[in-house]
């Protein structure tokens, strides 16, 4: 079955799909977005239930292999120490993301020139800066201007409270003379744009029933749907089709809500399926012209997968830290060890994030992203009564460098509910990352002690958090050289001139910050380039 052709076909209604649709609105082109999941209904938010924490281990797990909802596709991550996590539905992973919103830094775009590793991006911080600002305004970002770790900018809303925990840690950093700053967050500190401010519920991974978190289900999609963008839900794309005469993309095949396979024609196809979902689709779209997968003449589709490997250190303080009150990942961020320093024994760097502590069940089960329950018996009682309430922690979030062997391929056996091959992840930590994690743990110890911790909880430094593949980048990277990259400097495939990619897969390097502010700024930038070049777009 074929539907009417459209001008722009976007695959994926998450962070990047929404942002590019918004950017292209003014062109008056006919825009259609196909999304394999659905809208989240008001009754779906578990945080309105007494037993809300249970949802984190069932239908609201961030791990699709645990959720196993109809719209989810399984991910084989047996060959990886980190498993990718996500949400599939309108809003994409901004449904369960934590709203931490740091920008990448100028040096992140020039790692090859500055530090001799990774590759330089075909654009830089200053190219993106106006799009960061535009996206912050659309999203409703809160933070404190004047952070000396960045070129000057000011978030549109004042910071959210950093709370007792943030204040305590900040004083520790001040004692050491180290950088820290209140986190930028895609969370409303004030009522804004018809949305309610954050009520400090602390369960941002369970969706935000208040609508305070800047998921695109609350920010872009209501605007887009009002403006006439068609969002077709329960529509899972299985393959991108190519015209064998022109070599251009001509549309997609997708499984509709009626269980049938449909063909949708389009002038332009934009992939926004996340750093795992997009390479999966491209690798599955083989043809005589592209036997190794669409847009894959470089051989780099699915290669160079980057996460942000992380570990956490906790200190026990004398007073209750009330870490469960307030957005769970966002309080303060130190970038003291972000830039390269050869004396440290590794290249590039990391951030020290003060996540707040979590709710009792999650703590007892090992923490967010960890499956390692705390001890039972008398020790359990002691920990829950005398440790848990007094905890403050720091998370070491490291920059992951691109390495070709870290990859997404198609699993030869595992498939989703529509028979499409599942992605298979091969990933291992580099020695550089291990050195960074160790350094970060030691510095986090120091900071916690300086903040007044009476003791530091022991940490198994060989382990990174497994269920923490929140950020998926690099698998279709940008670049000027078609031999060494999948898309050009404005997200257009080198091989297929009307195919664009706008999600985290186009990152060249990962920085050591959460990526979504940059993913959306990039999508807006690409939208802007498309508009500028509209006259000769496919030349």
């Amino acid at each position, binding site marked *: 079955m074929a539907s009417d052709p459209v001008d722009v076909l976007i695959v994926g209604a998450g962070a990047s799909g929404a942002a590019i649709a918004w950017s292209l609105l003014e062109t008056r082109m006919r825009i259609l977005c196909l999304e394999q999941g659905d809208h989240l209904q008001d009754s779906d938010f578990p945080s309105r239930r*007494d037993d809300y924490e249970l949802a984190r281990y069932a239908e609201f797990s961030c791990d699709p292999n645990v959720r196993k909802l109809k719209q989810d596709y399984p991910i084989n991550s047996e060959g990886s120490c980190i498993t990718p996590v996500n949400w599939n539905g309108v809003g994409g992973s901004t449904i369960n993301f934590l709203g931490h919103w740091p920008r990448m830094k*100028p040096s992140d775009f020039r790692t090859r020139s500055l530090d001799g590793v990774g590759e330089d991006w075909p654009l830089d911080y200053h190219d993106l800066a106006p799009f960061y600002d535009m996206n912050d305004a659309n999203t409703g970002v809160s933070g404190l201007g004047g952070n000396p*770790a*960045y070129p000057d900018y000011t978030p549109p809303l004042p910071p959210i409270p950093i709370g007792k925990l943030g204040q305590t840690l900040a004083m520790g950093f001040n004692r050491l003379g180290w950088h820290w700053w209140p986190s930028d967050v895609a969370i409303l500190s004030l009522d804004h744009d018809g949305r309610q401010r954050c009520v*400090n519920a602390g369960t941002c991974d369970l969706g935000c029933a208040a609508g305070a978190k800047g998921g695109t289900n609350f920010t872009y999609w209501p605007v887009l749907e009002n403006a006439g963008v068609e969002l077709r839900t329960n529509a899972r794309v299985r393959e991108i089709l190519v015209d064998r005469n022109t070599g251009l993309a001509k549309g997609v095949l997708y499984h509709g809500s009626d269980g049938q396979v449909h063909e949708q024609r389009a002038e332009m196809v934009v992939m926004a399926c996340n750093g795992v979902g997009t390479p999966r689709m491209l690798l599955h779209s083989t043809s005589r012209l592209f036997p190794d997968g669409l847009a894959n003449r470089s051989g780099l589709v699915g290669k160079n997968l980057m996460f942000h490997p992380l570990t956490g250190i906790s200190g026990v303080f004398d007073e209750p830290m009330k870490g469960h009150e307030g957005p769970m990942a966002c309080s303060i961020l130190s970038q003291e060890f972000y830039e390269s320093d050869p004396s440290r024994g590794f290249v590039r760097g990391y951030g020290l994030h003060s996540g707040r502590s979590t709710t*009792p069940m999650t703590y007892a089960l090992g923490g967010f992203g960890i499956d390692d329950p705390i001890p039972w018996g008398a020790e359990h009682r002691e920990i829950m009564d005398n440790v848990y309430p007094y905890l403050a922690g720091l998370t070491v979030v490291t920059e992951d460098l691109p390495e070709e062997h870290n990859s997404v391929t198609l699993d030869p056996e595992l498939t989703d509910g529509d028979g499409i091959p599942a992605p298979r992840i091969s990933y291992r930590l580099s020695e550089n990352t291990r050195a960074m994690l160790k350094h970060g743990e030691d510095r986090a110890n120091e900071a916690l002690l300086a903040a007044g911790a009476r003791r530091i909880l022991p940490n198994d430094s060989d382990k990174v958090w497994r269920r923490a593949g929140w950020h998926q980048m690099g698998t279709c990277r940008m670049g000027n050289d078609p031999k060494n990259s999948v898309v050009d400097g404005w997200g257009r495939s080198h091989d297929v001139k009307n195919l664009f990619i706008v999600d985290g897969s186009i990152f060249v390097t990962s920085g050591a910050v959460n990526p979504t502010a940059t993913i959306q700024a990039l999508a807006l930038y690409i939208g802007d380039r498309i508009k500028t070049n509209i006259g000769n777009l496919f030349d």
Partner: protein
Amino acid sequence: MADFPMPPKERHLLASILDQLIPGSCERNIPGAGETGVADYLAHVAARRSRFDTALRRLLARASELADGIDSDAIRRLEQSMPMEFAELLTETYKGYYSRPDMRAKVGVGAHPVHPSGYEVAQESAEFMDSLVEPVRARGPFYRDPSKAGGGRDGERSG
């Protein structure tokens, strides 16, 4: 919840195991997991997940053979002899116990569902924040900007 048909003897046995896994505290008036009826929660899970059902039945069968009754040594032996089943029981016990609002409150977390009311967290005043970040601001720019003139190290200040 009579999901998992459990004779009173087995239910009693399970409750004693649970009280060992999460003991109560008389001092703080906190009941253990056995006392709070976590067994009902486990029965509910067992009725829905056959793997857990099997694990639970096997653990109970083994526990009932323990001659000296249920104390922490007995539980440790159970853990060593059936590690997979034990791990499942522990996970579900923690879930059952801490999904109870009253148990959350005992460890300092609100009993209420967190939406819509959330928590009241005082907003720091602008003056307080300014004083807190003052030492950081005083250090000046703290990043490398390769696009700036002067070989790209313009914004850099080493810590």
